[in-house]
């Protein structure tokens, strides 16, 4: 193992240090570790190149002589290899290190520790003091977050099993467009290949692993997709008037447009998008809240209360 590591590191050093591209013949002659027949050295070199590429080391291939296009040269351009660390101030290095550190024991732990390792190779490190040491959003991040990021970056289609509202498992096939975190949940949004429409999924309702197709660039993210109707949050264009007991209904008061006192109660108005969600919230408050308008909402709440009584008699 370490003989091979040695050869690979020597290859990196030689290709980085050279000012002009090196031919294979030069590589085999000068770099320690290439031995055996021409064929076996060729095979060795191909494998080495692949391995370095998989580590993110970009080897540039160039034609050396315009008259002989079969003579190729190899080198690693320092600007493609080295982090532009001069561009970062000391506090910026510290922020990046802290950002990477916060993933410890959370979903992106592995790549973040590698990032941290690289950052520790930059000389200056300072204490930035008063910043949080824990981040709950990281703890709630799905363990496949790196795969989502990879899928979006590489435009790879993903497949996963998703729990529907009756906890039945459905296979979904999605071209992912974006991901986000709201409250303490993580979501992904993308084009559902089977349903031919945009959909948003809550990551904790995904069962098991995500499968990523091997093929990259298999879709495009249309410009301005966020403006499509199906993605926009439902417009909060319905208005309700509620009578709320004074000192109660904090969750409703938080979203109220107007509050007007009326004896032992306040009259409040709120906007809402989903009637079902609002009924849920109103029922939680039991007799501290009464719906005054609209009539349809009033009737729904009344019917729900009736059925609650009848099934709990």
């Amino acid at each position: 193992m370490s003989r091979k590591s040695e050869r690979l590191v020597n290859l990196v050093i030689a290709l980085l240090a050279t000012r002009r591209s090196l031919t294979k013949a030069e590589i085999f002659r000068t770099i320690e570790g290439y031995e055996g027949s021409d064929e076996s050295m060729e095979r060795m070199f191909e494998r080495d190149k692949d391995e370095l590429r998989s580590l993110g080391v970009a080897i540039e291939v160039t034609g050396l002589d315009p008259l002989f296009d079969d003579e190729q040269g190899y080198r690693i351009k320092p600007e493609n290899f080295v982090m532009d660390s001069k561009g970062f101030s000391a506090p910026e290095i510290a922020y990046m290190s802290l950002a990477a550190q916060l993933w410890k024991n959370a979903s992106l732990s592995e790549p973040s520790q590698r990032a941290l390792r690289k950052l520790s190779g930059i000389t200056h490190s300072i204490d930035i003091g008063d910043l949080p040491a824990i981040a709950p959003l990281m703890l709630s991040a799905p363990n496949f977050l790196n795969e989502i990021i990879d899928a979006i970056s590489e435009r790879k289609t993903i497949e996963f099993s998703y729990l529907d509202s009756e906890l039945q498992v459905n296979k979904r096939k999605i071209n992912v467009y974006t991901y986000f975190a709201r409250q303490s949940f993580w979501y992904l949004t993308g084009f559902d290949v089977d349903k031919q429409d945009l959909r948003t999924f809550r990551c904790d309702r995904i069962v098991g692993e995500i499968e990523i197709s091997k093929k990259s660039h298999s879709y495009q993210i249309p410009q301005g997709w966020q403006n499509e109707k199906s993605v926009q949050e439902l417009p909060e264009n319905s208005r309700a008037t509620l009578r709320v007991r004074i000192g109660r209904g904090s969750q409703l008061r938080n979203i109220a447009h107007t509050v007007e006192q009326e004896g032992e109660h306040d009259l409040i108005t709120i906007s809402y998008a989903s009637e079902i969600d609002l009924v849920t919230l109103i029922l939680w408050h039991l007799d501290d809240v009464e719906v005054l308008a609209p009539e349809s909402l009033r009737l729904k709440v009344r019917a729900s209360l009736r059925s609650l009584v009848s099934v709990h008699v």
Partner: protein
Amino acid sequence: MSKKVSQNQVERLLDLVPYLTSNQGVALEQVASDFHTDKSTIIDDLNTLWMCGLPGYTPLELIDLSFDTGFVTIRNAEVLSKPRKFSSLELATVIVGLHILRESIHSENPHFDLISTLLERLSSSSSVAIPQSIQSNVNAEIRSACARAVREKQNLSIRYHSYTNDLEIEREVFPFDLQIIDNHEYLESFCYQSNAARIFRLDRIKRAELLGASEFVPDNINTSESMRTFRFIVQSESRKVAETLQVDVPTDHSSRSELEASAFNDEWIVRSICSLNGAATLTAPQILRDQIKERAEKALALYA
């Protein structure tokens, strides 16, 4: 939970050189811990690196390492001495991490603008998928007041929305610590009004005011609350029921069998079942069934 950092030796060797260059004289143990591996692996790495250098491979070209004292110094490694570029996934962890970091501090905090500028620069120079938005449900000012109170052992006056009882209450507390439980942030404290240990969810603290250093430092008392067991039947929308009542609902619940769960608080059980709007019916205990019926009737009276 902690994942092992992938142990590709070449990758580690390439990262070791810049690390050692800027941390001359670092102890072997420290290197091992920073690279999440053991000391013998690092010694093996150093022995390998020793054989590396520029073509020619005479002492003039080879990397010069010394570590027999247990502390590592490196010379003659200029070509590899600068840290490598981030891979796109590594950059993503930094970018998402910075988003979360920025979200957790107040926008008037001087770090906020610096982090924003950095984020803009990192995002614009790469094609890595960045999050559309990161929103926490805790007010950054409240969080920083609580953190400061914990750090400086100051008493806190808080206005708290008691979710279950739907009441806003004023409390004076001595804070012990900030905690994360089930993805929510909590303040563990001693509450002077209740004369007992109390835990408050940060996103429900409406106001937090520092009252100065506390003269009295209470012990962190663990009070064990008693749990109430209840039984229910899922009628529909089983995912909503499972998420609201925080229980596992078997996927084949269609048999309408009775399920059991427990909670700290009767009021919470009553309100949760009501808010589920028929998706679940409480079957036991009878005393809570009665409460649901009575209180739903009382609410219904408003619509008479």
